[in-house]
C-alpha cells in the first residue's frame, strides 16, 4: 500500500482504478486513506489518469465519505479532488457536478489546519480555470471561510488561502467585489509585512487581481494603506515578489491620473525604476509598463518620471533585453513619456534612444508588434522634438515616411534660430536636404522650400546636387575676353 509510486504504473489505468475503488470502501480506515492518497498521486501525474478517475465514478464516493471521516482521510480526499481539478476546465466541471464544492466548503470549517489547507487548495485549482467555475465556488460560500483561513497562524494555510482568493478574483469585477465585500483587503494588506517570500507573492498577486478590474476596487486597495509598505517588497530578494509588487503598482496606476499621482507622491516611481534596474527578463515587464501608464496620463506625471531618472533606465532595457515583447513595452513607454511637449521629447532624445528605436523599426528580425510600437513611439516623439542634434542622424538613414516628420521639425525650428542654421549648414544637413527627392506640391516639398527660404540663394544653389557640373558647363560655354 504505502509503496505505491506513480512511475510503476503501466498503461493499465482502468485496471488500477477498478482495483483501487473497492479499497476506498474498506473497513480499515488506514487502507481507505492510503487508497485515496494513491488515487490522488495518480491523478496528479497525468490528465488521462485524472479522467479515468472521473470516469470510474470514484468522485461521488469520495465526496460522500468526505463528510464523515477523520482528518487524514479528508486531507487525502481533498488531495484527489485537487489533483483531478487542476488539469482542465472539463474535469473541474465534473468535480463541481458531483457536488464536491459543498463538502469542500465544510472542510474549510474543520479544526485541523492541514484539512483546511487541502480544501482551500482544491478550491483554488477549481476556480482557476474560468469565471463560471469561480462563480460556482463563490456560490458555495467559500469566500468568508477563506478570509477566516487567512487569519490563521499557519503560514502554509495563509499562502494557499491567498492564492485561492487571487484565483477567484482574477476573472471578473463581480467576483473581485465579492472577495472585497468579505473584508479580505484589510487582512491581505496586513500580511504584506510578513517575512515569508512565498506568502508575499500570493498576497501581492491577490491584491493586484482585485485592483485590476475597476477604479473603485483599486481605490479600495489603496485605502488599505499599502503605500509605502509595498515599496519595500520591491527590494525583496525573491524575484517573483518583485514582479508581483510591480504588477500591483501597475494595476493601480493604470486607472486614473489621481491614482498615478498618489503613487508618484509616495515615491513609487523611483522604487520601480530601481527595481527595473535590478532585474532581468520577464520580471522587468510590469515595471516598464507601469512607467508607461504613469507617463501616459498627463505631462506633469511624465515630467515626474523623467526627473526620477526613468528614461536612461528604459533605454538600457530597450537595448539590452533579448526578448521582443519587453523591447516593445520599453518602446511604448518611451513614446508615452516623450509625446507631451518639446521638453519631454528633448529628455528622451538626449539619451540617444531614437537611433535605437529607428534600428528596431527597420530591422527585419523584429516582430510586427515591436515594429508597430517603435514606429508609433518615433512618430510621437519626433512630432514634438526640437533638439536638432538628435534629429540630424535621422536625415541620413530614415525611411521616407519618417523623413517627412524630421524635415517638418527642421522647417519649424530653423527659421527662428540663427545658430541652429549655421550648425545645420556646417554639419552637412542642408546638402542632405537638397538631395531629398520630393514630389512637387507634397508636404515634404513645402518643408524643403521653407528650409531653403531660410538661407540666401547662393548657398542653396551651392549645395544643390550637380552644382559643380553647372559650374563646369559655364566654364565651357564662356567666351574669354581677348584684348
Amino acid at each position: 500500500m504505502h509503496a505505491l509510486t506513480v512511475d510503476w504504473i503501466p498503461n493499465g489505468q482502468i485496471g488500477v482504478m477498478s482495483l483501487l475503488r473497492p479499497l476506498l470502501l474498506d473497513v480499515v480506515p488506514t487502507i481507505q486513506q492510503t487508497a485515496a492518497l494513491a488515487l490522488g498521486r495518480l491523478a496528479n501525474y497525468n490528465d488521462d489518469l485524472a479522467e479515468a478517475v472521473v470516469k470510474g465514478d470514484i468522485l461521488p464516493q469520495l465526496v460522500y465519505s468526505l463528510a464523515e471521516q477523520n482528518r487524514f482521510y479528508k486531507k487525502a480526499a481533498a488531495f484527489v479532488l485537487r489533483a483531478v481539478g487542476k488539469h482542465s476546465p472539463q474535469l473541474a466541471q465534473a468535480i463541481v457536478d458531483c457536488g464536491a464544492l459543498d463538502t469542500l466548503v465544510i472542510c474549510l470549517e474543520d479544526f485541523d489546519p492541514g484539512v483546511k489547507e487541502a480544501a482551500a487548495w482544491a478550491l483554488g485549482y477549481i476556480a482557476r480555470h474560468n469565471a463560471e467555475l469561480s462563480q460556482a465556488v463563490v456560490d458555495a460560500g467559500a469566500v468568508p471561510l477563506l478570509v477566516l483561513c487567512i487569519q490563521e497562524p499557519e503560514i502554509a494555510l495563509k499562502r494557499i488561502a491567498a492564492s485561492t482568493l487571487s484565483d477567484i478574483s482574477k476573472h471578473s469585477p463581480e467576483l473581485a467585489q465579492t472577495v472585497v465585500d468579505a473584508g479580505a483587503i484589510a487582512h491581505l494588506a496586513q500580511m504584506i509585512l510578513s517575512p515569508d517570500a512565498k506568502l508575499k507573492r500570493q498576497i501581492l498577486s491577490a491584491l493586484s487581481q482585485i485592483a485590476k478590474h475597476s477604479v473603485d476596487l483599486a481605490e479600495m486597495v489603496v485605502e488599505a494603506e499599502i503605500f509605502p509598505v509595498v515599496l519595500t517588497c520591491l527590494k525583496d530578494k525573491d524575484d517573483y515578489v518583485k514582479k508581483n509588487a510591480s504588477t500591483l503598482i501597475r494595476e493601480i496606476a493604470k486607472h486614473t491620473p489621481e491614482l498615478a499621482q498618489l503613487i508618484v507622491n509616495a515615491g513609487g516611481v523611483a522604487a520601480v525604476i530601481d527595481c527595473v534596474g535590478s532585474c532581468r527578463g520577464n520580471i522587468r515587464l510590469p515595471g516598464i509598463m507601469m512607467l508607461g501608464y504613469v507617463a501616459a496620463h498627463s505631462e506633469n506625471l511624465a515630467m515626474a518620471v523623467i526627473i526620477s531618472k526613468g528614461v536612461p533606465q528604459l533605454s538600457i532595457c530597450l537595448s539590452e533585453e533579448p526578448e521582443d515583447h519587453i523591447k516593445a513595452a520599453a518602446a511604448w513607454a518611451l513614446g508615452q513619456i516623450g509625446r507631451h511637449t518639446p521638453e519631454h521629447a528633448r529628455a528622451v532624445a538626449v539619451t540617444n534612444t531614437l537611433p535605437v528605436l529607428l534600428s528596431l523599426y527597420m530591422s527585419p528580425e523584429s516582430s510586427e508588434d515591436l515594429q508597430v510600437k517603435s514606429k508609433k513611439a518615433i512618430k510621437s516623439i519626433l512630432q514634438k522634438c526640437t533638439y536638432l542634434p538628435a534629429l540630424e542622424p535621422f536625415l541620413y538613414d530614415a525611411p521616407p515616411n519618417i523623413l517627412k516628420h524630421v524635415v517638418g521639425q527642421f522647417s519649424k525650428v530653423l527659421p527662428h534660430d540663427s545658430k541652429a542654421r549655421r550648425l545645420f549648414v556646417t554639419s552637412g544637413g542642408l546638402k542632405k536636404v537638397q538631395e531629398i527627392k520630393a514630389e512637387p506640391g507634397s508636404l515634404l516639398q513645402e518643408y524643403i522650400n521653407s528650409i531653403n527660404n531660410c538661407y540666401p540663394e547662393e548657398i542653396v544653389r551651392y549645395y544643390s546636387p550637380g552644382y559643380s557640373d553647372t559650374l563646369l558647363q559655364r566654364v565651357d560655354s564662356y567666351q574669354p575676353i581677348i584684348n
Partner: protein
Amino acid sequence: MATLARLQARSSFVGKQYYYRNSVVDQFRKKENDAAVKIQSWFRGCRVRAYIRYLHRITTIIQKWWRSYLGKKEFRHVVQVAHYTMKMNLYNEMAVKIQRRWRGYKIRKYCFNYYYLKEYLRAISETNDAIREALEEFAEMKEREEKKANLEKEEKQRDYQARKMHYLLSTKQIPGIYNSPFRQAPDPWELRLQKAKPLIHPRPKVRQECSTSLSDWLACTSARSFPRSDILPPINKKKCQGPFRDFNEVLEQRYKPLEPTLRVAEPINQLKLAREELKREECAQNVNDKMFFPFSSYHKKEKYTPSIHSSSKYGSDSYGEKQFRSENPKKWICDKDFQTVLPSFDLFSKYGKLYSRAGQIV
C-alpha cells in the same frame, strides 16, 4: 344856310378832320400812352426788381443763418462722436490692461502655476531620493539580518556537534585529538568541546492520546489552546548550598490552607447575630415601618409631609398619573402631527464636487 352849306361842305372835312384829328390825337395819344406805358412798365420793373433784390438779400440772410445753424449742429454732433470714441478707446485700453494682468494672474495662480510645478517636481525628486535611501537601508538591514541568522545557525550547529563529540575532550593523562602535543596552541574545537555540555539521550516521552471528541473542541483548536497542565514547569534555579529544605515542601507548608477546629468554626455571639439577621430580613418585607400604634391620636400631631412626587411647584409629577401614550390635546401647539416620513436628502451627491480645484496639479 351858308353856314350850313359851309358846314355841310366842311362836314366831310370836318368828319375827316375830326377823324384825322382824332386819329392824330389818337396816335399821339397812343404814342404817349405807349410812352407812358413804357415808362410805367420800366418803373414798375425797377420797383419790382428792387423789391426782388430786397427779397433776395433777406432770403440770403435767412438762408445763411439757417445754414450756419445746421452746420453748427452737425459739428456738435461730430465733436460728440469724436469725444465719445476717444473716451471709449481710452476705456478699452485700460480694460485691456486690466484684463491682461488678470489673465496672467489667473493662469499663473489657478491653471498652471509654473513655480508650484517646479516646486512639486523638486519635492518629488526629494521624496524619490528619500525612498531610495530608505529602501537601500531596508535591503541592507535584511542582508545583515540574514547574515546574522546564518551565522547563528552555523554556531548552533557547531555547538551541537561539540556536544555530540564531547567524549573527544582531552584529559590530563591523554591529550585529545584536537590537542596534539606538537601544536603550540590547542585547536579551537578543543576549547569548544571544553565549553560544551554533554548531550544526554532524551527520555522517551509519554505520548498523550489527544482525543478529538466534539466536547473539548475548544482545547483542540490550535490558535486558542495553551498547555493544560496543573503544575507549571520548574524554573531552572540553582539549589543554594547548605542545610535547606526542599523548596516545594516549604511552599506547601507555607500556603497550607486553614483547617479550623469545630469550636473556632462559629463565632461566640452566633445566636445574637442570627436573631438580628432574622429581624433584618423581616423588616425588609414590611410595607410600613411604624407598626400599629396603641391610640388613634398618637400620630395626629404629626404634620403631613406630602411626598416629593406630588409636591412640585410646577404641577404634579406625571409619574403614575399619566401614561406614556396618553395625549393631552389642550397642550398641543398646533394641530398637525410630526412628520414620520421625511424627504430624503442627498448627502453625497456633491461629494468631491464642491471642493474647488484651486491650485491643484492634475
